[in-house]
């Protein structure tokens, strides 16, 4: 990915977010196509290193999408992911990438609308930044 790319890397937990993306597709609900979904067994599988590597490789935004709190198949996966996203955000701020370009999203498997809104929000944030 080169710098002026506007790709959003979305790490999607296969128990929730990945199914939500499928559902959005089945309902033919369209969302920005610069999202690239990477399937992970649990949001807890995503670490700070993966998020930073995504930005290093040119991603413009990263979404870590896991189950709702208290409904994680692996109990602490989503809460750990949330902490790591927060730490990644601080590390990115140190290098001048801020403005919420990395975000933790908690989804239940049927929240297609919420998924689309989160993707659109991130796409708009990147769009806004790109123009400046």
């Amino acid at each position: 990915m080169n710098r002026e790319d506007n790709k959003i890397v979305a790490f999607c937990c296969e128990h929730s977010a990945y199914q939500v993306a499928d559902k959005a597709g089945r309902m033919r609900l369209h969302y920005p196509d610069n999202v690239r979904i990477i399937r992970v067994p649990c949001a807890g599988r995503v670490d700070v290193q993966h998020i930073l590597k995504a930005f290093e490789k040119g991603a413009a935004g990263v979404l870590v999408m896991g189950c709702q709190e208290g409904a994680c198949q692996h109990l602490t996966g989503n809460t750990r992911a949330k902490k790591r996203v927060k730490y990644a955000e601080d590390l990115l701020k140190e290098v001048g990438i801020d403005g919420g370009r990395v975000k933790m999203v908690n989804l239940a498997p049927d929240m297609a609308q919420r998924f689309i809104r989160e993707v659109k929000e991130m796409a708009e944030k990147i769009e806004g930044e790109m123009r400046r």
Partner: protein
Amino acid sequence: MQVRIGIFLCDCGESLKNIDFSRIRGDLQRLEDIAFVDISHNLCLEEGVKAMTSRILAENINRVVIGACSPELCEHSFSRLLKGLRLNPSLLSLANIREQCSWAHEGDVTGKALELMRMAVNKARFLQPVEKKDIPVNKEVLVVGGGFSGMRSALELSRLGLRTTLVERESVSGGKLGEFESFHGIETTPEEMLSSTRKAVKENADIKVLTSAEVTRVEGQVGDFTASIGRGEEKVSQSFGAIIFATGYMTKILPQDFQLKPDVNIISQRKLVEMLQAPGKLERRPGTIGFVLDVSDENSRLPILSTLNNALAVKERLGSEVYVFCKSLKVDSEGVEKLYREARERGVVFLKFEEKPRISKEDGRVKVEARDVLLGEEVTLLCDSLVAEEKVLPPEGTEALSSLLNIGTDSAGFYQDENVHLYPVASERKGIFFVGGCKGDLDFTRTLADISSATMSIYKLLSPEKVIVEVEKVKVEPEKCRACLTCVRVCPHGAIQMVRVDTEKEVAKIYDLACDGCGICAAICPAKAIRFEGYADEQILAEVEAIGESL
């Protein structure tokens, strides 16, 4: 071994109009290590599968990449197909070009489809085979707690052909069921239920009962737990494949709920049951009996169940006036609504309060004053005896056992973490289950359902001839492991333990049967010593690198 990748694209019966499959095939063919790129219309149908099978057999490829519908639909069948062709199913990489590409966006998405395929190809290059193996598994089950639930579980397991050891702390089994006088509408009394169950257990050769015994230590993982059981001086250590907790509950009248200490007039449900069982022995039949319910906010169903049953029993046997003071009455579980109606019909008076009723003594009788919300006025009742609400609490030793086994408890201290996926009987550790009152919200009708659910899960786990497991799908590399214990502490399923390897060095070991494949350990390991095949760091990184790569 040189990577050779076979790529299949499915255009879903040429319905994915916004993807130019031939252009994608053209681009993909130019990548290295690609043996072939086939376009099919129906990889999920007989015809498509046959074509794919002959293609794979013809070309000696060692990775398969398939761009089709969502893996949630096709992954399972494709893996089985590969297995049939003696190709390791882990060497499969899927791209979701239908639900998450063609159907999800307007206009032509050939570019995105190509990128998704390149991501899958990049990942395929790093895939490693994962072997499957059957592992020996101990088929014995440990049941902790010899109450009704524990005994029923043991009987159910023996019906499924599994031997159990039943450990009961008290000198005699039975637990709390004996405290109930009757279940309205059920002929057999709790007493009869208990004695028949006890008899069945005694006569059952598959069940070994250890009374006045306690579990002191449990090590190991599902399929190979080692429990040390203390019985007086005797120490027994035995191996089990799974564990069921049926440790029940205890009830206590909490001082802050009730200012007055229980005495002759203020009695517990158990005392009331004793009165009911021997009405003759009472010197004076109580004229009016009061019940107070749900004083503290969260209440469990047990007090309601015993109050309604006992109120009806009082009406039948003693014929005294019965008043029930309650803040709210949960009647949502089976048969409780009917019980409540019958009580009303038999003349039991229910009074609803908001603030806590004031309880005092007046010349040998109990005075209860409360503001009835429905009547909208103060009510004062003088009754001969008042049945105080008993709070349902986890029995002593719950905390010790749960920390010993590294399994969570819920906010009230009962077993089973508050997580929807564990419902109804699972713990976060594979092979450990909870039935009956030890989970907190006690409901008899569901206990029997819990027991069959737990025993069935154990049957599924232990009884197959060969217990197959993916060998080291998530693996700790001993030479990189620093034994820092982070993964052991972090694993939500307690599937990681320290072991001494051949070099006498202590390293972490992930137990394949107990591991639930979440990858939290792989992410947090500071030495990057844990590799999760299928979601390894280099595989995730390879997918990221393919994003936006110009050809």
